[in-house]
């Protein structure tokens, strides 16, 4: 069995990968996929610690994270389709009405 450190490091690596993707890419679809990557890495850490503490609570948290991620994807993709239907380019830098 590999040590807990390895699982947590893989989780941190995937989280940083997703963060860099959010900061780097202009395509909002890929930004959404990077957010999925970050949620998945959090799940990996939750399940690893759940096995470490021999308690199923971390797995329940991970299941709820999966449900939240699914609903977030549904709303996000509906937003993409609405933006696309209004005839605008799918570009993070172009969608700046909410800029503070």
């Amino acid at each position: 069995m590999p040590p807990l450190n390895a699982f947590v490091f893989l989780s941190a690596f995937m989280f940083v990968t997703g963060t860099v993707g959010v900061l780097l890419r202009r395509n909002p679809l890929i930004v959404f996929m990077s957010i999925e990557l970050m949620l998945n890495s959090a799940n990996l850490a939750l399940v690893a610690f759940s096995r470490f503490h021999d308690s199923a609570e971390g797995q329940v948290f991970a299941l709820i994270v999966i449900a939240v991620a699914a609903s977030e994807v549904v709303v996000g993709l509906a937003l993409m389709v609405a933006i696309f239907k209004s005839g605008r380019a799918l570009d993070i830098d172009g969608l700046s009405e909410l800029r503070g």
Partner: protein
Amino acid sequence: MLTVLFAIVAALAATSGLGVILNRRPLYAALSLVVNMLALAVLFLILSAQFLAAAQIIVYAGAVMVLFVFVIALLNPRREERPLRGDAQVVAALGVGALFILLSAVGLFASRGFTTFSAHAGAGLGSIQGFGNVLYRDFGFPFEATSLLLVVAAVGAVYLSRGR
């Protein structure tokens, strides 16, 4: 044995995660994400979370990724001339990313040595019985709140994408 399997699957998960953010075409990025989620399901099996591995494959690799691929095919975005943001932001993001990976490597491996798991998982950990006991006894309210969230998300998606 498990360590070798972990090394292979972890390398697969890390490279497919990089593939998500490095591919120019959204469809290839989505397929990388499918590989990443399947690798995570195998890692869940190694961590004796059998039910969660099945849920991961059904919900993520099944439902969510089908939705992603469907929307990518529907929108069919043009090939981007500039897939990345401004130069300063690219440099800053890569620098911060490398810094955080370095910091987590130092923090996790250099400070206190390795933390090993117990040899065998507790009885019923990750099985549907053990999982359901905790979910319905201790986390009843979050479970109900999740169902409300899913209804709100479905209504919101229909509202946002309705024809005008």
